[in-house]
């Protein structure tokens, strides 16, 4: 659902990774691109400015300058800022012990009636509640018919009085529900513009009459910059308790999601992500942030790595790599540090572009790494420093000591040599382990 934004930011991040260090100059270029990507994703203009400045400021901070992996640090900053924008935790739907009353509001065509159907279905399935719908859209032709058809297919009762006064219908509907023992009541209302005073007053009157537990705004995920006016307009009149973002199964970039919480503090409670009546999912901010970044979880790797890997040691290693005098002792250290990060395939899966490179399905035999480690551990310090002194007899000893064979020792040495050659080519300080 956030595929486009994903691609854009992914590119930006790969670009930054190419830089050895983050400077005022290259960060400005990045900032410009992030700004464009977010604007193309319909993130609110005002947030974009603020967001980009925050990222820029932090990226230029001391922490990043010292970092050996400015790309990762940069990505980490980007992700954290995004999660901040989305709101750190998800807010569940209110479900009262006795009766829960939910008022649905929104512009025309945002998907209120369909969402009422989906929500009724979800509530019954997941929380075992007895839902009932109240049809208060007395304006749009066949709106009541639509809700009734949905109710029929879901086997959920719909309370309606035709095109009478919606405030009265809502009140009567609640009384009817109490009589019948329904305990989750969804009130469908007509779509209206937030600047339509008459209709907004009607909505306020419905609200006052039934005193709902949840007042939800149903909002189209494809909305552009005007979203914020709509959200504010409804919120001023109704004190919204949450939002439902619809049509997220489209290819919209969904910048609305980013704007919503940050500008209004109204939680997104659910997202509509299919045409089917079970197409309603929980909104999990961190998941969305990760999707937007499209870098899986590179950042948490980076975070983890910066916790575990000793920076000074890493700096020393990097220098050696550049000079080409990286030896097996260093290699062993690297391996130990990488092992601390957890199973390698998990890490590979999280790498940006992992899918493109087919790394998401890769299987790495942890035994293989253990064997490599065992081989190196069976060498003396001198042998690790100068692998070229390894001749037949030494190799035999090492093979016996590590429970491997001479062929395996030879293979490792060969791989190590080619790795060293490759490392010389990496002059940007980015460490890559070619196994």
């Amino acid at each position, binding site marked *: 659902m956030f595929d486009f934004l994903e691609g854009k930011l992914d590119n930006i991040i790969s670009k930054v990774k190419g830089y050895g260090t983050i400077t005022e100059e290259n960060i400005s270029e990045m900032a410009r691109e992030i700004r464009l990507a977010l604007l193309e994703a319909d993130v609110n*203009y005002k947030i974009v400015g603020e967001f980009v400045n925050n990222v820029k400021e932090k990226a230029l901070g001391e922490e990043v300058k010292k970092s050996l992996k400015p790309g990762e640090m940069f990505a980490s900053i980007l992700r954290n800022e995004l999660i901040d924008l989305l709101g750190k935790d998800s807010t569940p739907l209110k479900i009262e012990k006795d009766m829960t009353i939910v008022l649905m509001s929104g512009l025309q065509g945002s998907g209120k009636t*369909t969402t009422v159907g989906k929500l009724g279905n979800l509530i019954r399935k997941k929380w075992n509640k007895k839902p009932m719908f109240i049809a208060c859209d007395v304006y749009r*032709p066949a709106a009541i*018919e639509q*809700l009734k058809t949905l109710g029929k297919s879901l086997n959920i009762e719909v309370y309606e009085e035709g095109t009478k006064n919606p405030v009265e219908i809502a009140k009567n509907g609640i009384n009817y529900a109490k009589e019948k023992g329904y305990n989750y009541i969804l009130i469908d209302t007509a779509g209206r513009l937030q600047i339509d005073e008459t209709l907004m007053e009607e909505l306020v009157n419905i609200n006052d009459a039934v005193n709902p537990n949840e007042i939800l705004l149903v909002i189209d995920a494809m909305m552009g*910059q005007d979203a914020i006016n709509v959200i504010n307009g409804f919120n001023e009149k109704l004190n919204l308790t949450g939002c439902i973002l619809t049509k997220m199964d489209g*290819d919209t970039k969904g910048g609305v999601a980013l704007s919503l919480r940050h500008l209004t503090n109204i939680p997104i409670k659910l997202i509509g992500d299919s045409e089917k009546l079970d197409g309603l999912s929980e909104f999990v901010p961190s998941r969305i942030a990760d999707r937007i970044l499209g870098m899986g979880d590179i950042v948490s790797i980076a975070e983890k790595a910066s916790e575990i890997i000793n920076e000074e040691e890493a700096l020393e290693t990097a220098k050696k790599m550049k000079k080409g005098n990286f030896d097996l002792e260093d290699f062993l250290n690297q391996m130990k540090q990488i092992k601390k990060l957890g199973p390698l395939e998990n890490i590979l899966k999280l790498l940006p572009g992992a899918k493109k490179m087919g790394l998401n399905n890769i299987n790495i035999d942890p035994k293989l790494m253990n064997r490599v480690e065992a081989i190196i551990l069976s060498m003396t310090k001198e042998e690790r420093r100068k692998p070229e002194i390894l001749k037949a007899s030494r190799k035999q000893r090492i093979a016996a000591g590590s429970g491997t064979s001479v062929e395996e020792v030879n293979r490792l040495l060969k791989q190590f040599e080619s790795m060293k050659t490759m490392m010389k080519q990496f002059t940007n300080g980015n460490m890559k382990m070619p196994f």
Partner: protein
Amino acid sequence: MKIFDKIKKVFNMNEKENIEKYEEGLTKTRDNFINNLNLLGIKYTKIDEKFYEELEEILIMADLGTTTTMKFIDKLKKRVKEESVDNFEYLKEIIVDELFLIYVGNEQLTSKINYNKEGLTTILFIGVNGVGKTTSIAKLASKMKKEGKKIMIIGADTFRAGAVEQAKIWASKLGVEFCGNDQTDPASVVYKGLEEATNKNCDVVLIDTAGRLQNKINLMKELEKISKVIEKQTGRNIDETLLVIDASTGQNGISQAKNFKEICEITGIILTKLDGTAKGGIVLSIKDNVNIPVKFVGFGEKEEDMVAFDIENYIYGLFKEWN
């Protein structure tokens, strides 16, 4: 060439008889517009980066998107430099002129419906969910009925609950013919509708289709099938395929236009819900990037709430609140 001449050029092909009347009306609108377009002039004494930044904000907030906005600002800067513009009165004219050019280019645009002179005119309405296709059909039906045409609405949205019913209610309210059924597939509904329309000697059929998100391959294929059925049955191209776009649509509008255009030969856009606070700037971006012009603008729920698109008025609307 000044903006006024350009407008004349755009409209003078098919509407010679209307030109004078149009000019009159337009001059008034235009004077009014330029006078009222105090945009940013008060705050700024010179045309500098800060000024351009604010102009950019206005356009992005109107959903013009970054590509079109940047292109516009670049062109504006270039012209300001070349012509050494330093007064805001003239700058206003250039701003309008350049925006106008983004929309019009060198084309001849008309918001008139392309009627079939020999028989039944077919008009297909397409778009994503909830943009206002059915309501737009009702509005256009009302407009055409007033012109003396015999209309049939075909309710072929067999997917959304109550959609056929909605179209039917409109048809009976407006007193036009109706054919629809939600118990069968949309292509059959269209087939049957066209047959009935021919039998009843209708002049125009307005075909309502289900809202579909442009990335849903099956639904797009279904639309392709519908349009093939129409062309096969009438033996000619569909006269008008109108893409309905909600004014509040963000940059996804480009994807909508591109993807629907791959399936259908879109002849124009109906921009709906312009009575809200959204500016609908995405249509400028769509014209600029996908080259589909706007034909009508919807601004309410009543049958008469639709007018032919007027770029002048539209540009004015973009800056209205910034005066």
